[in-house]
């Protein structure tokens, strides 16, 4: 075959297989929504998963948020003092966290901490025929296994992002006020005046809900679709992190442009 045709056909193959996977993931997403009623009837399972995905991610979220906040405080002060507006440091830290860093970094950490765990768990359940066994017992794995994990991810993400922003502000405060010596009152009052609840806080929360849906669906789908072998599960886990990270960053751009245009 002509080498150009070869390249074109392999490119075509890649594109069609990616589109096929996207369609299959969308179908998977709709199935989760359809089975949500059955999932919510077993609410204790969702609560248990919130513990595993949300509560167990708290340490990494809090520690990261604290450091991110402190770095923001340092970098912000360094730049702002050149313009004589170092009192605005509180606004800078809060806006950066609420609008961008809170939702985005939380989603990236969530994909690495909880997303990989979800993919590996579902992939191994598939490899050890636990999902087939459930199917044969006339219990839908989508309702019993996938649904609770999906809703746990969607509920946990905005809460984690809010905690991230809150702890980040504390980190920024620690660097700016006690260490550098910015005025305590100016730090909080400027933040109070310049942070808009609807435009900054709610928009940040909307982002984190969207990221929560995206990261959890990707993790669940990769696990559910993984070939039932050791290699298959390991590849799926890697794909979860890569796809989730790129999706979060891409979606962040799209959402931000809509929010700013609005």
């Amino acid at each position: 075959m002509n080498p150009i045709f070869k390249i074109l056909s392999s490119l075509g193959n890649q594109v069609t297989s990616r589109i096929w996977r996207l369609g299959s993931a969308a179908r998977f997403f709709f199935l989760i929504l359809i089975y949500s009623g059955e999932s919510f009837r077993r609410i204790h399972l969702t609560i248990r998963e919130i513990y595993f995905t949300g509560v167990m991610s708290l340490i990494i979220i809090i520690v990261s948020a604290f450091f991110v906040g402190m770095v923001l405080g340092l970098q912000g002060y360094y730049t702002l003092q050149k313009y004589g507006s170092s009192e605005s440091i509180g606004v800078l830290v809060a806006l950066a966290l609420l609008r961008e860093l809170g939702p985005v970094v939380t989603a990236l950490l969530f994909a690495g901490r909880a997303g990989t765990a979800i993919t590996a768990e579902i992939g191994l359940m598939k490899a050890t025929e636990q999902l087939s066994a459930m199917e044969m017992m006339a219990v839908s794995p989508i309702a019993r296994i996938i649904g609770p994990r999906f809703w746990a991810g969607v509920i946990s993400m905005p809460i984690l992002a809010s905690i991230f922003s809150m702890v980040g502000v504390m980190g920024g405060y620690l660097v700016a006020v006690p260490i550098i010596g910015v005025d305590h009152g100016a730090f909080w009052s400027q933040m109070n005046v310049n942070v808009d609840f609807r435009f900054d806080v709610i928009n940040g929360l909307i982002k984190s809900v969207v990221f929560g849906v995206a990261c959890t669906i990707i993790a669940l789908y990769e696990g559910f679709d993984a070939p039932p072998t050791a290699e298959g599960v390991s590849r799926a886990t890697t794909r979860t992190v890569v796809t989730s990270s790129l999706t979060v960053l891409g979606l962040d751009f799209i959402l931000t442009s809509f929010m700013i245009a609005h």
Partner: protein
Amino acid sequence: MTQKNIVEIENLSFGYDNRMLHKDINMVFPRGKVTAIMGGSGCGKTTILRLIGGQIKPKAGQVSVDGKIVHKQDRQGIYELRRKMGMLFQHGALFTDLSVFDNVAFPIREHTKLPESMIRDLVLMKLNAVGLRGAHKLMSTELSGGMARRVALARAIALDPDIIMYDEPFAGLDPISMAVICDLIRTLNDALGATSIIVTHDVEEAFSFADYIYFIADGIVAAEGTPKELSKSRLPFVHQFVHGEKDGPVPFHYNAPSYKKDIYESV
């Protein structure tokens, strides 16, 4: 009217992509009997169980369970049929996040609204039947292979199914566990008045408890009969399989071009 055969497979063909696994297979599984499906690895024995359970659809022909054609049922219909079935998977497929007790209680909790005290009695009764009542507090990850298989069996019979399917129940077990499972298959079948379908390649065990045996080779039913009839069979495939001969109708070598050609081509 109750049918004589609880499961009937008629002119069944199934395959993946272009490779046909089964070609025009016919089988019947009479009520109350223990029927074994035997054949070499990869001949599609387990696939037959999956077709009976409605996890996959045939390319041609049909599988009927209790008079209902499996692949023509909607999801609800398939789930109703599955409630009449219990399946023991090759490695047990126990839920690793649940204890032995919760694993056996799982189908009862999902499909009935029985009070917890009654569920406890039922679970302990099922575990007692497989000799593991004393292990009900253990986690499924703490069990040996043989014990896991027995717990899975207790789970498979939790709702007193009409059909019990076993996928390679003896694979990787020590002789004692093997004898225990062997005994349980026959005992449970007769005690529950169920019908058992066993997929296996363990000749000695299958011949010791099965009422009827199907041999599958090259996608067709190569031989069938009672263990007595088959042990006397002069069919070359059955002879090779039953006596474990390394060469015969099933060749030792995988299909390949001539050795000479392969050697010279690599130079």
